[in-house]
């Protein structure tokens, strides 16, 4: 177990960072000491990532001071940040899947032996093993990383941080892809490290977790300090106020719509992942069916089979009674099915394409003649969608990747909505986006349902599932373990079915 010899004392004083046209940080101050967990909250674009990069020495601030252990650090580089014991666990994990666990943990700090400087595998494994034991991982130092789950990759990153004798651990959205039990295990690790004298900066949109683990909460808004909450004041409402500067009164619009005729129906649908578990579901127009379950329960696989990304082993998908030819995205789209994928950056958006190009992508057939795209019609459609869905994009011809996560997600939704789909599958629709944008996404979903579309929402955010769904179907290991009506919805009921 790493024993922190000298707990860190770090102060950011009046830090400012200006990018061309944007003030990313304006006069931000933040203090953190060894042995405390500080929750850092703020909407997307509030300056959290910039602050992180300053702490990691990746970018140099334009103004202000960084004081570590009482000394002014004027030129913090990534290497010097490591020397000071500052380590990160990034939101988007990218471990080296071509190397094993030990090689990943000690990458860049390999141990050598002999005159030739060959890799000393034994010494490296001996260094890594106790770290893994402390974290209670299911994988060992020699295991390949390619087979690890997201949760295990997270622990791998933490092991990496521990291996540099961490004094300040910065966790960026560490739980966004973890199941409940994995999250709890991570929280346990965080408390362990704190008791050991490590300072922890915990960045997340999941306010429940902040309330759970943080000793203090710091809020950022529009690049500046929004305030701080003492332990006694940490609760969800106070945090939301801190982040957006006002109360969010009606966060979930829970009015249940009268359900129409059955729009989507699967009969005996079996996916390749769970070839022995046929799934039957029926979805009515105007309904939002929540699909809950643990990560790996087969929810995404089901969605991919319905949307034709993967060919199902057996079974049929019908839209309004008409069978959809299996295993073809083109046929699924023709039938009026659309999928808002979980990973919007790789599957949902063309980040380099313009905002207009993204919105028009699924509608090109109607926007073109003789194979030529009508650019005016494209822009008109995009402009309409921008106003309709309140997408904050100053220019439609700029790349979508420049917008905040919330606005990117609105583009993904908008591009399908303009095609007037009948079935909309949403896979973790609000993952990694902030409270304000979440409320808008929920609002869009309700509007779609009101127009008669059938929505299938996969979500691991329990509050979201309960708040948004008209009904909830729970899956466990590929099987539908139960369906809960609106009045039966509770965290406990869902969990019981999920672990069945």
């Amino acid at each position: 177990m790493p024993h922190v010899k000298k707990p860190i004392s770090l102060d950011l004083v009046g830090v400012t960072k200006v990018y061309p046209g944007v003030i990313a940080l304006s006069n931000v101050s933040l203090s953190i000491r060894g042995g405390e967990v500080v929750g850092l909250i703020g909407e997307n674009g509030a300056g959290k990532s910039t602050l992180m990069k300053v702490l990691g020495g990746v970018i140099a601030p334009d103004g202000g001071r960084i004081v570590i252990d009482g000394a002014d650090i004027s030129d913090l580089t990534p290497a010097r940040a490591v020397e000071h014991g500052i380590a990160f666990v990034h939101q988007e994990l990218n471990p080296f899947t071509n190397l094993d666990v030990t090689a990943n943990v000690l990458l860049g700090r390999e141990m050598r032996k002999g005159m030739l400087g060959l890799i000393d595998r034994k010494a490296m494994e001996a260094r890594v093993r106790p770290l893994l034991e402390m974290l209670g991982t299911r994988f060992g130092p020699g295991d390949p990383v390619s087979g690890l789950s997201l949760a295990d990759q997270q622990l791998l990153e933490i092991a990496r941080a521990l291996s540099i004798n961490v004094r300040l651990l910065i966790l960026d959205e560490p739980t966004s892809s973890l199941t409940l039990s994995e999250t709890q295990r991570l929280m346990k690790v965080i408390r362990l490290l704190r008791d050991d004298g490590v300072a922890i900066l915990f960045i997340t949109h999941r306010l429940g977790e902040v309330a759970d683990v943080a000793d203090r909460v710091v809020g950022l808004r529009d690049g500046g300090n929004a305030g701080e909450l003492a332990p006694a004041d940490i609760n969800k409402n106070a945090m939301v106020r801190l982040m957006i500067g006002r109360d969010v009164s009606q966060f979930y619009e829970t009015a249940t719509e009268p359900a129409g005729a059955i729009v989507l129906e699967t009969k005996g649908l079996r996916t390749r992942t769970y070839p022995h578990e046929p799934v039957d579901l029926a979805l009515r127009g105007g309904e939002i069916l929540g699909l809950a379950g643990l990560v790996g329960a087969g929810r995404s696989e089901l969605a991919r089979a319905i949307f034709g990304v993967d060919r199902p082993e057996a079974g049929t998908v019908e839209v309004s009674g008409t069978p959809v030819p299996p295993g073809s995205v083109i046929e699924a789209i023709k039938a009026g099915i659309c999928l808002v994928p979980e990973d919007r950056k790789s599957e949902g958006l063309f980040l380099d394409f313009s905002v207009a190009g993204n919105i028009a992508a699924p509608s090109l057939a109607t926007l073109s003649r003789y194979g030529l795209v009508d650019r005016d019609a494209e822009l008109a459609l995009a402009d309409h969608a921008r106003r309709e869905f309140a997408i904050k994009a100053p220019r439609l011809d700029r790349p979508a990747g420049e917008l905040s996560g919330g606005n990117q997600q609105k583009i993904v939704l908008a591009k399908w909505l303009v095609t007037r789909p009948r079935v909309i599958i949403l896979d973790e629709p609000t993952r990694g986006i902030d409270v304000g944008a979440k409320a808008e996404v929920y609002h869009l979903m309700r509007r779609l349902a009101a127009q008669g579309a059938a929505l299938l929402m996969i979500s691991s955010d329990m509050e979201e599932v309960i708040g948004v769904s008209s009904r909830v179907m729970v899956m466990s290991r590929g099987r539908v373990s139960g369906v809960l009506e609106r009045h039966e919805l509770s965290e406990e009921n869902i969990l019981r079915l999920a672990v069945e």
Partner: protein
Amino acid sequence: MHKKDLGLAVLVLCVGTIVALVNPRFISPVNLANTANLIGLFGLFSIAEAFVIVTGGIELSIGSVIALLGVIFIDLIATWGVAWPMALLIVLVLGVLIGLLHGWLVTRLQLQPFVVTLCGLLIYRGVARFYTRDGTAGFSFGSDFPMLERIVAGRTGGIPHSVIAFAVVAVVAWFILHRTVFGRHLFAVGKNEVAARYAGINTRRVIVSTYVLCIFLTAVSAVFFAMYTRSVQPASHGNFYELYGIAAAVLGGFSLRGGEGSIIGVVLGVILLQVLQNLVNLLGIPSSLNFAVMGSVILVGVIADTQISAYRERRRHLATMSGLARQPEAGE
């Protein structure tokens, strides 16, 4: 040895056995020595190419460099009377400089490796042809360099020295790639350059060194080739050789996206390519089909490889799933 390498080894043995059965001349000492010589010659720069590929780069100028440095080498000793060790040194230094230039353009000016080395392919070939006024660089009648020829083109116990050089380079390369920290960093850079930089690896230096290493080894092989052909016609000498190197690496399990591959694989890839060439000759297949045969075998090999890994992935997935089913919520 990886399963992939094992599969390739089996393939090499099968093809070899079939050719030997159809035409026993395949295993005659003369033919074996000739094929081995070619394996050695082509192997040197194939290993060089592999180092660039493992970092996600590519080197397309190998053939042109072999022509240019071959021309310069022969010209230095035959026309200018430079002592051959000095000429060798000059050629090797030139190779290092070319490699440095490529690496600098890729890492400092952020140009794409394909573009940089494609331009290299065109430029060096052009310079070589201009240098000889589109003629042939060769030794004048009667001039000979017995020491040099014995070292580079000679044989010991019937084994061509090119094979010995190839074997030595392969062993050293294996150690570098699979046992040293530098090799580990090559794999890391190839998989994810940004993450590698954040891990404290000097990614620029790593990438530059692969180009230097690549063209340095190519310079060595340029000397071997020059002494093998004894005259260099810069318009055709070394044409397409970079593609042999890339093909050998791909056959050997290297991913052109970087981060994957093994030296044993590329060695086997080189051997397979030369055996295939030999097969075309020995089985009476029209030599115009040479490339077609090679291309087909590579394609089939790559298809088989991806299908087998997809199958394995599926099976592993199913095994994990059934493991989960037996042990609900294990380890929580």
